[in-house]
């Protein structure tokens, strides 16, 4: 048998893996469902996302139309969350803002994963001196606050929109993800099946692409929900300071900024978007905990 054939056989063995893999995910899914808090958080999270998608489409109110006679209304049947200082319906507008906030949240999280996986995979896979250098570099950067760098990034790009916010919020937030991925790759590299694959002459990129990276998927899924809260809060902070999404565009942060001046007489304008942020972040944290317990049962002790 030639080396390629053996490699093919190995790949053939690998092709049997999806069955085992799906059972791994099924096990995790079953464990997740047993965690009532995490399930409730997951359902609430989905409800918020559905609310953000559906409400602006079906709502009778135009979230951007200014109606001064309707300004500063408290909650009522026609405006469940009341109206803001321009008479805009907050139920619809908060849903619209949620689209931007959650969208930026997932966009930046994805960017963080891409950078983190690239950096971590290179460091863990190549190993040796390069790994040492890359990790010492990360050690020193650890804990660097993302906000000044996000502000800088926005100042340089010069325009604030959905995509520039994604860039700004991911630019200094990927350090932890990179370290986690590197740790995973280092551990996985020691597995017998990886050694066997090397022994039969599988190319490095095949090993990385077929054996190592797919096995980090569990960790990455957890990372999504670990990073999401920080990014969503980051967007809110930037917009609240007037450096992010600007009115009339709505994000939860810019809506909170809108409500800032009227907080004494009409606190609901700042409370509603803030509570939306808090609920989403809380859900994401619970989902992350649930996923960690489900995907990595060894760490489940507390």
């Amino acid at each position: 048998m030639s080396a390629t054939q053996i490699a093919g056989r190995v790949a053939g063995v690998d092709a049997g893996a999806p069955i085992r893999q799906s059972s791994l995910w099924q096990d995790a899914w079953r464990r997740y469902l047993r965690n009532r808090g995490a399930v409730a958080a997951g359902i609430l999270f989905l409800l918020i996302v559905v609310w953000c998608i559906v409400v602006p489409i079906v709502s009778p109110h135009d979230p951007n139309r200014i109606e001064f006679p309707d300004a500063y209304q408290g909650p009522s049947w026609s405006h469940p969350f009341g109206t803001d200082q321009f008479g805009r319906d907050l139920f619809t507008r908060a849903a619209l803002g949620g689209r931007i906030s959650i969208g930026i949240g997932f966009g930046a999280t994805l960017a963080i994963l891409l950078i983190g996986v690239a950096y971590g995979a290179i460091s863990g896979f190549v190993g040796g001196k390069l790994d040492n250098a890359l990790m010492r570099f990360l050690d020193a950067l650890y804990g660097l606050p993302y906000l000044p760098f996000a502000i800088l990034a926005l100042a340089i790009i010069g325009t604030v929109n959905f995509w520039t916010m994604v860039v700004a919020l991911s630019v200094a937030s990927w350090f932890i993800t990179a370290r986690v991925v590197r740790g995973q790759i280092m551990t996985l590299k020691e597995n017998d099946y990886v050694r066997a694959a090397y022994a039969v002459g599988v190319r490095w990129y095949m090993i990385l692409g077929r054996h190592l990276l797919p096995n980090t998927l569990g960790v990455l899924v957890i990372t999504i929900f670990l990073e999401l809260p920080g990014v969503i809060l980051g967007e809110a902070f930037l917009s609240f300071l007037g450096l992010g999404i600007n009115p009339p565009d709505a994000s939860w942060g810019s809506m909170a900024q809108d409500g800032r001046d009227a907080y004494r007489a009409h606190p609901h304008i700042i409370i509603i978007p803030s509570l939306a942020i808090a609920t989403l972040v809380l859900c994401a944290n619970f989902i992350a905990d649930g996923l960690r317990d489900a995907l990595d049962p060894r760490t489940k002790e507390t």
Partner: protein
Amino acid sequence: MAAYIIRRVVWTVPVVLLVIFMTFTLMKQIEGNPFRKTERAVPAAVQANLERKFNLNKPWYVQYAQYVKGVATGDLGPSLVLRDRTVNDIVEEQFPRSIELGLLAFGWAVLLGVPAGVLAAMRPNSRFDYGSMLFSNVGFALPNFLVATLLIYFVSVKWGMLPTSGWTTWQHKILPSFTLGLVPMAYFARLVRGTMLETLQQDYVRTAKAKGLRRRRVLTVHVLRNSLIPVVTAAAPLLGYIITGSFIVENIFAVPGIGRYYVTAVSARDYSVVMGLTVLLSIIVIAANLVVDILYGILDPRTREART
């Protein structure tokens, strides 16, 4: 250990240089120049003089080298917008307030967060445990501008107990520091609970109990001491939280500190101030990281082997 410390210290130098370089390059890309934004036309000769005074006409690497030299000697250069002030003046005036705010916030966190975590771990799954973990989760999730607004709304406006904003008397300092301390508090409570539960399961704790030590002694000598190590290690990431939080908290409570000034400087396109403050904050975090890593090695001998 010595080799580890030396290597760790040596590695911070290129990182600091790189952070300065990145900040520097980024600032060079920003459109607009503070000298051009006035409506009054500045004569070309004056413009050229100004640019020469601030080295804006030199090639970038000369500017970079001069800047690094400045940072190394503790000179962050002049402000480009405030004519009679240097970045150092601004730092000297505003930074102590931010440090005070940060320390007070940290104080709240240690004072309330650590005991909450300890008590929760001593009675796992009790009402107190659930209560403090719920508080911790909520503390993480609430955006601090909401916490600040609610505190001002109730404590200051409705009940009239504390001033709404400013930074003069100790009454002014309670609400901002508490708001800023909420996330570290939540973090400590959770962290201490986790490590303490873990420590309680260690063999040496079982041994201590088995040889008949009293519960109090086991808890203080064996459990608490080892559980508090992560509190030290958490200082570096917490510093990041506190810096990020201070941008919002100083803004809402009108605390004239660095976080608030940073935002003003960005809007005013005061490059040298933004650059100076970014570099300063980064160096502080990098230094804190270094200290924490070394302390960790000293406090927990088990990590020495693994980390070299």
